[in-house]
């Protein structure tokens, strides 16, 4: 399971720079990220090269949480996401949020957050449908 880092960011200038500054100094590489926002705050979610280290160096300054997410291969072609969404939907797995990044070659990587109790089911149905699930180490060092 891939570990995602989530950070609570007040909606003010320089908050993101503070996070990235710390990660730069600690030589933690960001693989992928997404931000959700309200008028008051945002949540920055990241896949990084070393989630435990990221948590350790950030938690003095920020609210940080770790969440298990699924990283799976996404065909970088029309219908790629549709295939995965259909497989999960047909199995009654609700996707809470997702984001993607382009990995190597023609594969994109999809980060999926589903309800905790649905996670192993999601992995099973995706695996049965021939979708490749990545190991954490592959993602962290990609």
């Amino acid at each position, binding site marked *: 399971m891939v570990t995602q880092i989530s950070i609570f960011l007040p909606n003010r200038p320089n908050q993101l720079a503070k996070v990235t500054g710390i990660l730069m100094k600690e030589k933690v590489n960001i693989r992928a990220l997404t931000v959700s926002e309200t008028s008051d*705050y945002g949540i920055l979610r990241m896949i990084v090269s070393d989630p435990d280290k990221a948590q350790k160096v950030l938690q003095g300054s920020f609210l940080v949480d770790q969440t298990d997410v699924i990283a799976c291969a996404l065909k970088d072609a029309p219908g790629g996401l549709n295939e995965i969404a259909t497989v999960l939907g047909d199995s009654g797995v609700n996707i809470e949020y997702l984001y993607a990044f382009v990995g190597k070659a023609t594969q994109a990587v999809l980060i999926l957050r589903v309800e905790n109790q649905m996670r192993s089911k999601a992995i099973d149905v995706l695996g049965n449908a021939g979708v490749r699930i990545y190991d954490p180490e592959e993602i962290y060092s990609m």
Partner: protein
Amino acid sequence: MSDQVRYWAKEIETMPRAQLQDLQLRRFKELATRCYTKVRHYKQKFTDMKITPDDIKTLDDVKKFPITVKADLRDNYPFGLFAEPMENIVRIHASSGTTGKPTVVGYTKHDVDDVWTETMARSLVCAGVWRGDVVQNAYGYGLFTGGLGAHFGCERIGAAVIPMSGGNTERQIMLFQDFGSTVLTATPSFAAYLAEIIKQQKIDRKLIKLHTGVFGAEFWTEKMREKLETAFAEVNATGKFNAIDIYGLSEIEGPGVSNECIFKKGNHIWEDHFLAETIDPKTGEPTAPGEPGELVFSTITKEGIPLVRYTTKDITSLNYEKCDCGRTHVRHAKITGRSDDMMKIKGINVFPSQIEYVLMKIPGVAEHYEIIVERDILDKIKVRVELTPKTFSDSMAELENLKRTIEKELYTTLQINVAVELVAPNTIPRSIGKAKRVIDMRKEG
């Protein structure tokens, strides 16, 4: 019309002070007797202090009696301080307590008819309202005493009352024009808002007949009076407007405890019903006329929930000089502040302790919070709450749920909308000693 001195009960309102004091002495004795014989709380208090109603020989003896505080009402929630059985109670109102439970008051028919409606009628006439006036009552109707108190006072004097209640700005402005309202009863902040909207909408000033505003349920200043009088005079038919202060609190009766006359030199307290004193907030000792102190009332004619020396915590001073209007009843100056931390927001009392009570009930909310009050014409209140590692997750839905839960709980307790802002840990400044929880950014007035 509004510059003519009129009385509702001339004989009483202009009664020589010596005679008024005789009446007060007799009535205070009756009050003490009612409390002693009918209310366990007072029986106990008087006994502890080794006093009985028989110890009252002069008005000076009043100060031997215990002060009643809001907490006494809370400790006897809901009806413990009522002196009459429910068969004799005809109305129940409630206002904010200091925590989750409201402060409850009950009225007998006599309290409603002969005390509250009577003093409210006097207050309106004192303010320059009369039969023939059309009063648009924009105080909230409900558990809050403002709406119904003003309403029955209007009917008593024969004015036509429009029970409009608060809010609903567009309709308020439509009725000003269509019904030709001549008097507005509202909180000063809402009145200021209405004046601004009338101006913005460039309404034909011939249609705006308002000549007087009876404004209260919030603290306001002379500066605010100037602002309100100018704002309405700019948009109404006559180019003249009186902004008059009304004062009251549900524990004593609701609006109409005191009211300014058209000379606007302090609020006349209807002393044949409410015996007023000012006390030093620290020592509890009476302060001299003209000296600031907490305003204290004994409800000398009330039956439902008679109170001995109830402290309002409002800071003001008393002026016993006869007024230009001919009334002899003592005047209090504009309320300059509170000796506790109660805030008035949109006419509603709010205690920081109520907000704390709500927050502490919600799991995962840190003890660090701050209350921000702003006036963007209308009052706005926001509570900033620090998140904890326990409440934070990657799920925005959960955070938004937490925010909505806090907002809902705050509404349930306070009966006003509070915006909640979730903030990161250590965002709210820590202070040494008593935490400064409230930031009131409302400008002067």
